[in-house]
C-alpha cells in the first residue's frame, strides 16, 4: 500500500506555475501533495508582459488570482524562500525558520538580473527590471526624476528603456557592445534599430563602458544616483535613475550549496528528463541548464515543466533543446532574428536588403550552395518571419531568386512550395501537412477554425499569415476559391459593403443593390444590409422605405420566433435591476395573455407564446408601464449582466449595477454583426461572469478593467484584457471605439472573439487601434457612437404609435380577427406549451386540403 508522497516546488514563477498546472491536469496530484514556496509577495504572474504592468496593473498579470489552485492538493505559500536543501534528510529549510520534508523536489527558481560590480551599484535609485516590485519602485522614483539610464542595450534593456521613456523620464541606453541587441542582430541591423529608437526621443550610447555611478552626496552611505561616468569620457552624464539590464544569471545557489552539479556557465545541470544529479531533485525553467545550457525564454521553460511532469509519471518525455528564434516589437519596431543569424556556418553567404530611409534592414543567411536558408535578421519589417523561420527548421529548398523573400512587396510568400513536413507553428509543433489535412478533412474555411482545430498559431501567433496563405491555397486547389462575397447578389464582404454604403450614403436596399449588386437579394444579404443601414442611420427597422422588408424573422416582428410560429417577448431590464412594480406588470401581462414565463441567462424575463397579432397589445401594456424593447430579437446589444456590486456586497469595490445600467442604456439598440453581450463585475470574484461576454468590465481598486472577445455558446471564449484600471471616461471611450470598429469591420454573424482572432495581429491590433489610435479613427468612432446614443429611440414604442406599422401585425390580411388554427397549446408544469402538427390545420375541416372548390 503506497501512501501519498510530498512534492515540493521551490519558486512560484512562470515555469513553477506551469509545472503545477500540468501536475494537476495530468493527475500527478493523485499521488503527490504539491507544496509550492514562492519568495515573491505575490503568486505567479506574466513576467513576459511585465512592462504592461504600467498599463494594466498587477491583477491583470496574475496567473492565479487569489493564489489558490482548484485542486486543493496543490498549495502555494508566498513570501517564503527556500533557504537550504538537506539531500540526506530530504528536507528543505524555509525562511520562516521551519523545514519541510519532500519525496521529490522541483527547483524552479528562475534567474536574477546580473549586476556588474560597478562602483555605486548600491546607491538609491539603482534598480533592476525583473519583478513587479522593481517596476513599482521605478515608477515611484520616476515621479521626481528628470533623466534615467538603462545599462544594457539588449532585448530586456530596450524594454526597460521604453518603460522609462513612457514614464516621461529623459532616457539613455548605454551598451558596452558596439551595437544594440548584440545577441540577436548584426551591426547593420543594430544601427537601423538605433535610428528607430532615437527617432522616438531616446538617446543611445553604444561601445561605452560605465566606470562608476555618481552620487549626490560624497561619502554618504545611502546617497542617491546623480549621474553616470563613462570610461574615457570626461563629462558625467546626469541621471536620477539607473536600471541594470546587463543579462541574467540562473539562480542556482541552492543547488550549489547542497552539492548538485551545475553547468560551467551557471545553471543546474539536468538530464533530458530534467533530473539533476540527485534523482529526487528536478530543475526546470531559467535556473536549469539541460545539456549545460540555460534558456532565457519562457517557451523552453514551459516545455521543461511538461517534461518534468511526464518524467514523474514515468513518461518518456525529453527536452531536446529549443528554437531560440525571436520576433518582437520593440517600441513599435519589428525585430526578428532566427536560425544562424550571424552566418557562423561554414561557407554561409549573406543576402542583405537595406533601406535606410524607411528604416528597414533584412538579412538572409544561406548555405554555400545557395539551396538552403540557414537564418536571418529582420529589422523594421518582420512580416516575412512567419514563412522564413519554418524554412530554416524544415530545410526546404530555397526558391530560385531568394532575394524575392526579402524584397519589399515581394510576390508574397505563399507561392513558395513548402513540403508537408515543414513546421509551420513551432510553438505547438504543427506541420504544413497536418494543417492542410485538417483544412481538407474538417472542411475548415477560416483561420480561427484552423487555429482551433490544429492549435497552430495559438501561442505567439507569428504563423497566422502562413495559415491564411495555406487556407487560400487549399481552398483554391479544391476549387473553393476563398470567396468573400456575402452571397450571390453582392460580390463584397460585409466590411466592404459597410464602407460602400457609408461612402455612397446609400439609405435603402434598392439603392445598394442598384449601385453594387444584382437580383433582388436573399435571406443573407437583406438582413446584413438592414443591419448596416441600422448601424449607420439608426432609423426604425420596420421603416417601409428603407429596411422594412429586409428584416429577418425576429426583427421583422420585433420579437423572437419560436417553434410553433408564436413569439416571445423580452422587455429590457437594464443590468437586471427591476422594481417590484415592474415585476408585477410583467406578471400581469403574462397572466392576461396566457404566456409562458422564464428567467433568461441575461437577467431578464422572457414571455413565450404570443401570437403575432397580440404583440402590439402586449407591448402597449409594457410601454405604458415604462418598459422598452429588450432587442432580444436583434443582432444587437442584448444585456449587460451585473453582480450586485459595492452598493450591497461586502466584497464589491465598485458599483457594478450602476455601471451595467449605464452601459446597457448607452449601447441599447446598437445594431451589430452578431448579438452583443456585456457584463460588469464589482470585484475580482467576477460573479457577473463578465469574461464570458463580448465586453466584460471588472472593477479594481483603482477603476475598471476592460476585457473583450468573450462568449458562451458552442465555442466558448474567455474575454481578454484590453486595458486595465480605467477611469469611467476612458472605459466608455475605449468601449465606444471597440464596439464601433467591430460593427464596421466584422463579418456577418461574426462574434467579437472570432473577429479579433482573424484580425492581422489579433488582440494586439485591437489594442493599437482602440488604445493607441493607430489608424487615427478614434474620434470618428467615438462620434459615430455618440450619434447612436443621441438618436436612440424605443422601436416598440414607435411601432405601436404608428398605425401603418401596427397594421402588419394581423393573423390574416383578409380575416384580421381570426387566429391561425395552426397554433395551439397544451399545458405542462402549470404553464402553456406549444403543440406542433404534421399537417397544416384548417379552419372548418369540411373543406378538403388543397384548393377552394
Amino acid at each position, binding site marked *: 500500500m503506497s501512501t501519498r508522497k510530498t512534492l515540493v516546488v521551490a519558486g512560484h514563477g512562470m515555469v513553477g506555475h506551469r509545472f503545477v498546472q500540468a501536475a494537476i491536469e495530468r493527475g500527478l496530484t493523485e499521488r503527490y501533495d504539491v507544496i509550492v514556496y514562492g519568495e515573491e509577495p505575490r503568486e505567479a504572474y506574466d513576467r513576459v508582459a511585465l512592462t504592461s504592468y504600467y498599463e494594466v496593473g498587477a491583477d491583470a498579470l496574475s496567473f492565479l488570482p487569489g493564489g489558490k489552485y482548484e485542486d486543493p492538493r496543490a498549495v502555494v505559500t508566498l513570501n517564503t524562500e527556500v533557504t537550504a536543501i538537506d539531500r540526506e534528510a530530504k528536507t528543505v529549510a524555509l525562511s520562516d525558520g521551519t523545514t519541510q520534508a519532500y519525496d521529490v523536489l522541483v527547483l524552479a527558481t528562475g534567474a536574477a538580473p546580473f549586476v556588474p560590480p560597478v562602483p555605486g551599484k548600491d546607491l538609491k535609485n539603482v534598480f533592476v527590471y525583473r519583478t513587479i516590485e522593481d517596476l513599482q519602485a521605478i515608477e515611484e522614483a520616476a515621479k521626481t526624476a528628470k533623466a534615467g539610464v538603462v545599462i544594457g542595450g539588449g532585448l530586456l534593456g530596450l524594454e526597460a528603456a521604453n518603460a522609462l521613456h513612457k514614464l516621461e523620464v529623459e532616457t539613455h541606453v548605454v551598451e558596452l557592445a558596439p551595437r544594440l541587441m548584440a545577441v540577436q542582430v548584426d551591426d547593420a541591423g543594430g544601427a537601423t534599430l538605433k535610428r528607430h529608437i532615437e527617432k522616438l526621443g531616446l538617446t543611445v550610447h553604444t561601445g561605452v563602458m560605465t566606470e562608476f555611478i555618481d552620487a549626490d552626496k560624497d561619502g554618504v552611505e545611502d546617497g542617491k544616483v546623480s549621474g553616470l561616468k563613462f570610461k574615457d569620457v570626461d563629462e558625467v552624464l546626469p541621471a536620477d535613475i539607473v536600471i541594470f539590464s546587463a543579462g541574467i544569471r540562473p539562480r542556482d545557489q541552492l543547488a550549489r550549496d547542497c552539492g548538485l552539479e551545475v553547468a560551467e556557465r551557471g545553471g543546474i545541470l539536468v538530464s533530458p528528463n530534467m533530473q539533476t544529479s540527485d534523482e529526487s531533485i528536478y530543475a526546470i525553467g531559467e535556473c536549469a541548464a539541460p545539456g549545460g545550457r540555460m534558456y532565457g525564454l519562457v517557451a523552453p521553460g514551459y516545455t521543461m515543466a511538461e517534461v518534468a511532469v511526464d518524467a514523474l509519471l514515468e513518461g518518456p518525455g525529453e527536452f531536446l533543446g529549443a528554437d531560440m528564434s525571436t520576433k518582437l516589437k520593440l517600441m513599435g519596431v519589428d525585430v526578428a532574428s532566427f536560425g544562424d543569424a550571424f552566418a557562423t556556418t561554414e561557407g554561409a553567404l549573406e543576402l542583405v536588403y537595406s533601406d535606410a530611409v524607411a528604416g528597414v534592414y533584412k538579412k538572409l543567411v544561406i548555405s554555400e550552395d545557395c539551396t538552403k536558408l540557414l537564418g536571418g535578421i529582420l529589422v523594421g519589417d518582420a512580416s516575412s518571419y512567419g514563412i522564413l523561420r519554418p524554412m530554416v527548421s524544415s530545410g526546404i529548398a530555397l526558391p530560385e531568386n531568394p532575394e524575392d523573400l526579402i524584397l519589399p512587396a515581394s510576390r508574397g510568400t505563399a507561392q513558395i512550395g513548402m513540403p508537408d513536413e515543414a513546421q509551420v507553428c513551432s510553438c505547438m509543433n504543427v506541420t504544413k501537412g497536418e494543417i492542410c489535412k485538417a483544412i481538407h478533412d474538417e472542411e475548415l474555411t477560416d483561420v480561427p477554425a484552423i487555429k482551433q482545430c490544429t492549435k497552430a498559431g495559438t501561442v505567439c501567433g507569428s504563423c497566422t499569415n502562413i495559415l491564411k496563405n495555406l487556407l487560400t491555397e487549399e481552398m483554391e486547389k479544391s476549387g473553393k476559391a476563398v470567396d468573400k462575397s456575402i452571397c*450571390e*447578389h453582392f460580390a463584397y464582404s460585409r466590411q466592404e459593403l459597410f464602407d460602400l454604403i457609408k461612402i455612397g450614403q446609400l439609405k435603402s436596399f434598392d439603392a445598394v443593390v442598384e449601385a453594387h449588386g444584382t*437580383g*433582388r*437579394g*436573399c*435571406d443573407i*444579404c*437583406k*438582413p446584413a444590409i438592414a443591419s448596416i443601414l441600422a448601424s449607420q442611420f439608426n432609423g426604425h427597422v420596420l421603416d*417601409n422605405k428603407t429596411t*422594412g*422588408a*429586409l*428584416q*429577418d*424573422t425576429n426583427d*421583422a*416582428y420585433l420579437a423572437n*420566433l419560436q*417553434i*410553433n*410560429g408564436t413569439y416571445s417577448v423580452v422587455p429590457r431590464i437594464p443590468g437586471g435591476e427591476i422594481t417590484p412594480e415592474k415585476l408585477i406588470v410583467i406578471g400581469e401581462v403574462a397572466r392576461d395573455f396566457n404566456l409562458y414565463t422564464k428567467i433568461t441567462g441575461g437577467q431578464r424575463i422572457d414571455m413565450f407564446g404570443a401570437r*403575432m397579432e397580440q404583440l402590439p397589445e402586449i407591448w402597449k401594456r409594457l410601454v405604458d408601464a415604462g418598459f422598452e424593447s429588450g432587442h432580444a430579437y436583434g443582432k444587437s446589444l442584448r444585456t449587460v449582466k451585473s453582480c450586485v456590486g459595492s452598493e450591497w456586497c461586502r466584497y464589491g469595490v465598485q458599483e457594478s449595477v450602476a455601471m451595467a445600467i449605464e452601459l446597457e442604456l448607452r449601447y441599447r439598440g446598437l445594431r451589430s454583426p452578431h448579438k452583443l453581450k456585456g457584463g460588469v463585475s464589482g470585484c475580482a470574484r467576477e460573479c457577473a461572469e463578465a469574461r464570458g461576454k463580448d465586453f466584460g468590465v471588472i472593477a479594481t481598486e483603482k477603476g475598471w478593467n476592460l476585457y473583450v472577445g468573450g462568449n458562451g455558446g458552442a465555442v466558448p471564449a474567455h474575454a481578454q484584457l484590453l486595458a486595465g484600471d480605467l477611469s469611467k471616461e476612458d472605459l466608455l471611450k475605449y468601449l465606444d471605439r471597440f464596439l464601433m470598429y467591430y460593427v464596421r469591420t466584422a463579418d456577418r454573424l461574426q462574434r467579437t472573439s472570432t473577429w479579433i482572432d482573424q484580425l492581422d495581429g489579433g488582440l494586439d491590433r485591437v489594442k493599437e487601434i482602440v488604445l493607441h489610435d493607430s489608424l487615427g479613427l478614434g474620434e470618428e468612432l467615438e462620434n459615430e457612437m455618440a450619434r447612436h446614443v443621441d438618436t436612440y429611440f424605443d422601436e416598440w414604442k414607435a411601432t405601436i404609435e404608428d398605425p401603418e406599422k401596427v397594421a402588419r401585425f*394581423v*393573423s*390574416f*390580411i*383578409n*380575416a384580421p380577427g*381570426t387566429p*391561425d*388554427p*395552426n*397554433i395551439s397549446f397544451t399545458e405542462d408544469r402549470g404553464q402553456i406549451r406549444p403543440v*406542433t*402538427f*404534421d*399537417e*397544416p*390545420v*384548417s*379552419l*372548418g*375541416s369540411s*373543406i378538403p*386540403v*388543397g*384548393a*377552394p*372548390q
Partner: protein
Amino acid sequence: MTKTADFISICRLEQLERERGATALVAGHAVAIFRTYDDQVFALGNYDPFSKSSVIARGIVGTRGDIPFVASPVYKQAFDLRTGACLDDAGVSVPAYEVRVEDGLVLVGPRKR
C-alpha cells in the same frame, strides 16, 4: 377544371408590401401571399413542412438566379414562389396557388398543378 369563379378576392394590391409576405385565410387554409419587386403576386401554403409551423409568409423574399423565392423564417429553406418547390431539398414542396390581379384586386385560385 377551374373556372374564374373559383378565385376568391383577398385584398387590394396596395395592401401588400413589395417583397414582403402576408397571410390570407383561403377556404379555411392559411395561405402566404407575396408581392415581388416587379409587382407579380404569388401564393403558397403557409405551412412550413420543415418546422411544422404556419410561418412561410414571414420569410424574406428575394431571388436565386432568376427564381423568385421565399426563405422559411425558421430554418431558412428556400421555396420557389412560382411552384412551391423547395430549392434546398428536392423532395419537398409546399402547395402553390393560382393568383390573378384584376382591377387592383388580388385573387387566389386553386392549387397549381
